[in-house]
């Protein structure tokens, strides 16, 4: 297959004897928008950490451009779910974006007009120019996400990973983030892999979906993956896929449908 940016081949991860991921395989091509969807605790963050080289795999392989990831690979940009930053930290929005260019380098750097203009351009592109001189710790969650997207994109990555960027956002910030990504990524030919527990805000922009549940993944277009028989196999229990007004809900079978004998057995094991 030509033009393949990222390939995961039968990746498995065990942490402290617990199986977090099993047999996860997929590929991402340049410019593709992929949603990494699944409930909390399904292994989405672990999967992103594997791609970033922050988590070793116990099985399988991760290839970027057909080769194992190099330690200082700048081709992957990353927007983490949470910033470890207090409101009084002396980092302005423009400082954070500027760190996206060379924050990993040692030594001092002199201020330059070209850099400042590049930072301003990036801030305008993500719609964060209004708070360029505010401290990043004082911003709202949605504003911080925009800043971190600018931070990641200014390094000119070919793949952008975002860990739950829509979590804890109100609906308008949510739509704002999705539209920024949908506008910028294709224009620059950047592939996006975005994790979320709700696929609905991403429906209009997703090319493909990786649905993760119970450490396993199903991959394809949303029509191929978001089907009761595929997801039930993934969850290991019956789930329904309900479509209402263009929205998709994945719903577990009601409690009454579970075999009571099985429940008692489960309870006794736990007890």
């Amino acid at each position, binding site marked *: 297959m030509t033009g393949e940016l990222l390939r995961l081949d039968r990746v498995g991860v065990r942490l402290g004897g617990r199986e977090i991921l099993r047999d996860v395989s997929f590929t991402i091509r340049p410019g593709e928008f992929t949603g990494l969807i699944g409930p909390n605790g399904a292994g989405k963050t672990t999967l992103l950490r594997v791609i970033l080289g922050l988590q070793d795999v116990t099985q399988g392989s991760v290839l970027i451009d057909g080769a194992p990831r190099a330690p200082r690979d700048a081709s992957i940009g990353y927007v983490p779910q949470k910033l470890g930053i207090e409101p009084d930290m002396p*980092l302005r929005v423009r400082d954070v974006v500027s760190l996206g260019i060379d924050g990993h380098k040692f030594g001092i750097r002199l201020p330059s007009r070209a850099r400042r203009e590049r930072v301003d351009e990036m801030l305008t592109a993500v719609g964060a120019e209004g708070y360029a001189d505010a401290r990043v710790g*004082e911003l*709202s*969650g949605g504003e911080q996400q925009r800043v971190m997207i600018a931070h990641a994109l200014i390094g000119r990555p070919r793949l952008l990973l975002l860990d739950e960027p829509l979590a804890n956002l109100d609906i308008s910030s949510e739509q704002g983030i999705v539209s920024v990504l949908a506008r910028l990524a294709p224009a620059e030919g950047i592939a996006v892999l975005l994790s979320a527990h709700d696929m609905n805000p991403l429906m209009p922009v997703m090319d493909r979906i990786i649905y993760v549940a119970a450490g396993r993944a199903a991959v394809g277009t949303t029509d191929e993956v978001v089907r009761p028989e595929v997801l039930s196999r993934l969850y290991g229990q019956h789930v329904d896929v309900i479509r209402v007004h263009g929205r998709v809900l994945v719903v577990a079978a009601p409690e009454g449908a579970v075999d009571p004998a099985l429940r008692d057995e489960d309870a006794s094991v736990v007890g």
Partner: protein
Amino acid sequence: MIVLRYVFEPGFFASGPVHIALAVGAVVAVTSAVVGLFTVMRGQSFAGHSLADIATTGGSGAFLVGVNQFWGYLAFGAGAAAFMEMIGVQRRRGRDVATGVVLGAALGLAALFLYLGTQYSSTTGASFAILFGSIFVITSSTVPVLIASALLALATVVALGRVLLLSSLSPDIAAARGVPVRAVGAAFLMALATSVALSAMIIGAVLSTALLIGPAATALRVTKGPVRAAAVAAGIGVAATWLGILLAYDSFYWPPAGRGWPVSFFVVTLIVGGYLVSYLRRRDRGKVAPTEPDREHACSVA
């Protein structure tokens, strides 16, 4: 002019010890302020405090065996920094253990060393010098060592500046971009240990964190960007140190006349005063963005 004569007592600018104190004080204040800024940003004030306690032991031990206390501060501080890096002092649990056990033991040893030291030595002011500083009695032979150590620590932190900022923003991003996060953390702790040892020379081992954290804490309240914050912190550190030296020199004529008040008292008081002024200005009140948790709950329910 009359007023100036009272502010700068006769002989202030002619005194050799004052020259040394002003020069060493300035270099150490700048280093401590810049290192302190990153210490606060990295949430490592606790590590700074621990290093100060352990440096007390080192300084008193050095006094007991007749070595310049700076080497004691530095050796124990660096050793403790290496140990902290090993046990991972960042973890809350590690902190609790360190506070209760290691620091208690360190200060206990310091008490023993100082007691033994005063038994075997006629230098009565030694324990005071170790605990609360001795900037006027820095021997001219130690000056180059102090200034070189300060510049080395400062250069380390400046060279690591961007990497430290990126790591404070998100350790994961830093690691993903190939920053050796662990090694950078260890190098920073060494710079921190050095600047604690240096501050201990100026204002004493137990007070050294004041010069480290105080100016940085004030700078965080009045600035937004990292470079300006470092400059303001350094300015506050130098101003407090120089003013403290001046006041201590003047206090020679204050009651009880004939003995100057401790420099560390003035330096620490000035630093705390500066912080209080910045605190009372309440620059940030009402400007903080609305908090997220409410929306968070709303979303998880929906």
